[in-house]
């Protein structure tokens, strides 16, 4: 077993090379809806059982199903109203199960990246060949369903194994979201090829907040706005990134959707915000800032 991921160098939060976002923006704000399918009768995995109750766990299943039937449509309408695009963390089997959803995402000019095939098929214990097979199949499915290239990755349920990041780079993935070590993009050390990490979040994320930490919707909105306000302020010095991951089965409930409306209204009324997608952030950082970050690390982060 590894004692640490080993994918990034220590980069203290002071005197970093300055990041400049397009048009003088202080903050790159991006929304990552997790559009998922949890199978009713998935196969077991030695490290994690998909459901807490014996299968079929109809309560757990139907709660997630709500996201695709109802919650997604509410969430997408609110985002569209504020002109905020999504970068979809997609269980790619959704392209086959629910093409209506993919159609709506594409009509809204959203990015699709891979969150694995199903949220009930974990990477825990896969061989490298098995992981590669999933990544390649996911790339083909996203291309077929949307015409988009597969640039980003979040392992389903963040169930990555020790070598997953290396394989992502070798398979041409440009950015990974499996690590939570930073508020800016960073280089990822891999054995071959190139990969960067861009900030995802489990702090500003509706699963931990709304489902695990018992946060009322108004408080959720206040937390997200506070996160934004501080990163916006710090972004005057060097560009920051705020990711807001969402899950339609939670945020799309009628008692919570108003919180999303409130948060986005707050964000878009600031003028130095770059409303970006994951792919756009990764491409900009790679083109303009990656080499400088590596040089700073090589020089001992002076």
């Amino acid at each position, binding site marked *: 077993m590894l004692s640490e991921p080993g994918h990034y160098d220590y980069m203290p939060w002071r005197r970093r090379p300055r990041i400049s976002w397009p048009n003088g923006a202080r903050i790159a704000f991006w929304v990552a809806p997790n559009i998922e399918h949890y199978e009713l009768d998935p196969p077991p995995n030695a490290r994690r059982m998909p459901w807490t109750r014996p299968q*079929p766990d109809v309560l757990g299943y139907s*709660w997630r199903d709500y996201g695709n039937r109802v919650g997604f449509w509410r969430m997408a309408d609110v985002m569209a109203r504020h002109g905020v695009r999504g970068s979809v963390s997609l269980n790619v089997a959704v392209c086959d*199960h629910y093409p209506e959803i993919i159609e709506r995402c594409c009509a809204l000019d959203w990015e699709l990246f891979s969150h694995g095939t199903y949220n009930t098929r974990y990477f825990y214990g896969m061989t490298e060949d098995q992981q590669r097979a999933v990544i390649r199949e996911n790339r083909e499915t996203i291309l077929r369903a949307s015409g988009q290239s597969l640039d980003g990755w979040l392992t389903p349920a963040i169930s990555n194994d020790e070598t997953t990041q290396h394989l992502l780079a070798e398979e041409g993935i440009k950015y990974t979201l499996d690590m939570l070590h930073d508020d800016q993009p960073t280089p990822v050390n891999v054995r071959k090829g190139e990969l960067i990490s861009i900030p995802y979040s489990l702090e500003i994320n509706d699963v931990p907040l709304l489902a695990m930490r*018992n946060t009322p919707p108004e408080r959720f909105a206040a937390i997200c706005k506070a996160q934004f306000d501080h990163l916006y302020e710090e972004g005057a010095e060097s560009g920051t990134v705020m990711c807001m991951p969402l899950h339609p089965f939670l945020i799309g409930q009628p008692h919570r959707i108003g919180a999303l409306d409130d948060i986005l209204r707050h964000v878009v009324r600031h003028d130095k915000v770059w409303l970006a997608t994951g792919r756009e952030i990764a491409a900009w950082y790679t083109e303009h800032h990656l080499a400088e970050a590596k040089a700073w690390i090589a020089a001992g982060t002076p």
Partner: protein
Amino acid sequence: MTGLPDDYLRYPLRRRGMDHDLYPFRVLPQARPVTWPGGARVALCCALHMGHFPMDMPLKPFIAPGGMERPYPSYWDYTLRDYGNRIGVYRLLKSLSARALPATALLSAVLAKRYPVLMDDLEAAGVEIVCGGLDMGHLHHSGVAEADERAIIQEATGLLRARFGQAVRGWHSPAHSESAHTQRMLAEAGFSYTSGWANDDMPYVVTTPAGQLIAMPLSQDLSDQRMLHQQHMATEEFTQAILAAHAVLDQEAQETGSGRILTIPITPWLMGHPHRMAAFNQMLDGILARGSLWPATMGEIATAWQSQNGAGA
């Protein structure tokens, strides 16, 4: 590394629509519009979770939320749940009837034997009886043999129909628990609607080999059992969430021209305490003040929906 078995990367049910045959995929914007009596925008269903929790209930393979959480014999857990069927429900029914709001009881069937006086009072108050399974110790899951599950359903159904007649045509499994056979067995037992699947705000049809059932909306995410008991949230956080949900559903009804449904899951052993009643009453008054409401039982809503959607909608 040997890796996972090859079939871990095979997906035999990866196809258009669901990975099962109970119901087709349907998205809310495509649901057929419905009209409620009087042109009301929102149908309001007050659903009372009237469970009986045996003190010796099994704790495996999982415990129903609210089940015996402390070592046997937990008087703490048992008596506090029993409070709901002695005190809480009477308090809640008084609040509802003062506002002319009907109630639907999701009733553990053993209560018909245990508390016949309570049955008389529910009947006198015009409460709709939905079978809530035998009791909270008899959960439905894949570890229960098919014949045993059928016997549980027959016993529960028999108890309530013996007291209330064939009017008992709705079912809610304890703790939203079901096996792969439950829906079919409920169709066999002559039920016409269920409320175990928390996946929609509007009804839809479930098709089993034994016939069809209407799936009625009943949230567990937005329920007092989850928010007050499991998530330890404040009463006002629950009542505010209900008001927020009503506002959104009411607005959607205005925008789409289709009626919406707000089902409020209410647990007498939780909500029926004196310190919660003011917030509960304010919540009801807040909803009533917005108008265009059709207060109805779950069965009445199911009937109204079915009459406009027919089979297979």
